């Protein structure tokens, strides 16, 4: 029987969508799902975790500033007490930071950024990219606990409507690392790795000022983030946090719109698992068209404003 411990990340009680997806991923392993949470608002988030498939929730109570090494040690102790056979976290900044530490405490290997998980007759399998997705590995582990992080936008959110039995456990306070501040992003600004729609631009947008037509397109969607190719990040048009690709972020939104991007192998590695891909490029032979589901050959500076108006009209209709 599998027991899967899931780190459920939340902001003051609001679960990250990626955390709910991770609970959905846990369901594909079968057996019991237990959530572990920390920080202010954990009781509310635990209730949400219950409604998304967790039978139990353990809240790490107290602890002053967030301390990833202390939290990881506590999570590993919860896993050990439960006799957990698996540990999962979403592959967010926080999850990617915590999960390797938890895995090391459990002396278990970690499968990072998994796109699928399965239980094949009791053997747990992880499906994950190698070489930025140029190959897909199906792996098993001989280790004591099957540890994995789940790629954002790759697993369903399952609303089960259940209730979790919540217990508390005192958090450790002896961390060697402490988060002392957060310069929050502009509110409402979605991260490119989490947004369901990404509109990305490259050198074809001409200059940093004209690039701003993509901000307008993203705003028209409402649920979109702006991404960028490395060429425009290196040129200083856009911040590195927006770069998509092998040395930027790997994204998998429902809809990816590549504007004035040629489709270099390192860029493609970061977006080719997106649901639907649209390319807008003035060169009909640009490699990005080989990948795109739908393409428009044309000047971005003409096509994008027209597209923005059309999306506004669609959204206005509801």
């Amino acid at each position, binding site marked *: 029987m599998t027991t899967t411990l899931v780190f459920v990340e939340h902001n003051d009680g609001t679960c990250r969508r990626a955390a709910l997806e991770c609970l959905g991923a846990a369901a594909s392993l079968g057996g019991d799902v237990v959530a572990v949470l920390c920080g202010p608002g954990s009781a509310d988030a635990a209730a949400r975790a219950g409604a998304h498939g967790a039978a139990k929730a353990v809240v790490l109570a107290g602890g002053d500033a967030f301390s990833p*090494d202390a939290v*990881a040690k506590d999570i590993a102790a919860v896993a050990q007490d439960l006799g957990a056979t698996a540990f999962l976290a979403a592959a967010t*900044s*926080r999850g*990617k930071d915590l999960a*390797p*530490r938890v895995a*090391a405490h459990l002396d*278990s*290997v*970690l*499968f*990072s950024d998994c796109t699928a998980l399965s239980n094949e007759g009791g053997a747990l*399998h992880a499906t994950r990219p*190698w*070489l930025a997705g*140029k*190959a*897909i590995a*199906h*792996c*098993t*582990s*001989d280790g004591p606990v099957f540890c994995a992080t789940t790629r954002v936008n790759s697993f369903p959110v399952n609303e089960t409507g259940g209730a979790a039995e919540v217990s508390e456990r005192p958090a450790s306070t002896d961390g060697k*690392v*402490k*988060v*002392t501040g*957060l*310069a*929050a992003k502009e509110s409402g600004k979605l*991260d490119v790795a*989490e947004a369901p729609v990404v509109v990305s631009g490259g050198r074809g947008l001409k200059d940093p000022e004209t690039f701003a037509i993509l901000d307008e397109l993203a705003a028209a969607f409402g649920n979109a983030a702006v991404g960028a190719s490395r060429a425009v990040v290196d040129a200083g048009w856009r911040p*590195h*946090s927006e770069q998509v690709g*092998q*040395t*930027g972020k790997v994204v998998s939104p*429902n*809809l990816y719109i590549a504007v004035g991007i040629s489709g270099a*192998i*390192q860029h493609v590695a970061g977006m*080719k698992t997106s*649901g*639907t*891909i*649209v390319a807008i490029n003035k060169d009909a032979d640009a490699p990005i*068209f080989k990948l795109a*589901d*739908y*393409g*428009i*050959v*044309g*000047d971005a500076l*003409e*096509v994008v*404003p027209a597209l923005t108006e059309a*999306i506004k009209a*669609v959204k206005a209709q509801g």
Partner: protein
Amino acid sequence: MKIVACIKRVPTTDAQAKITPDGKGLDAAGFQYMTSFYDEIAVEQAIRTKEALGGDVTVLTVGPTEASKEVRECIAKGADGGVILTDATWTGRDARATAKVLAAQLAAMGAEVAFFGKVATDRDNGAVGPMTATYLGWACVTDVVELELGADGGTAKRETESGVETVAFSLPAVLTCDKGLNEPRYAGLKGIMAAKKKPLEEVAFEDVPNQAQVARLELPAARAEGRIVGQGADAVPALIDALRNEAKVL
């Protein structure tokens, strides 16, 4: 300060994947190799740390003997020496095994700060740095984009989905480096000449067996063929129609 930069030799980012006949490995024929992208940032930060605080920099890798080429290239930028932990049967190790081997070596060297890349661009684990720190009982900050380091500890900034976090840490520490932390320098001719005379040790080590087993490796399914819906701004209605009625994403 005893400073170490951990680097991995990986296939170049333009490498094409081919699967071996047993379906479990990558065919390395035709691969060219490089120091993993983020590890160059780690090496640069190690050298800058020496320049600011004094001490010496060792470039450390677990890998095949051939990795001496990449280690020498890193030394040429201003490190003081290199160590390759190698064995005759090198076939790659999983993140846990690599971390255990590195942890033992860092402890033996008396390292005080070890710079890692945030992720190696072959297996994309993003795990070896924090796992190594955990085995050592050291502090660790991942994905560092800004760093202030003193003799006993420091503060680092890391980019998250919610904004930029400030993190305080004590030494000894593992710091994993993200793009933006620095611009790696090029090795000058003088550095390249000097690197030839600097010590590069090959050290045998106690093996740690892998836990991860590859059941099967495959190439990603090709995407269904797409189509050009039209030219210029006039094609926008056709695109909207396709997104609404075919792809159903609007």
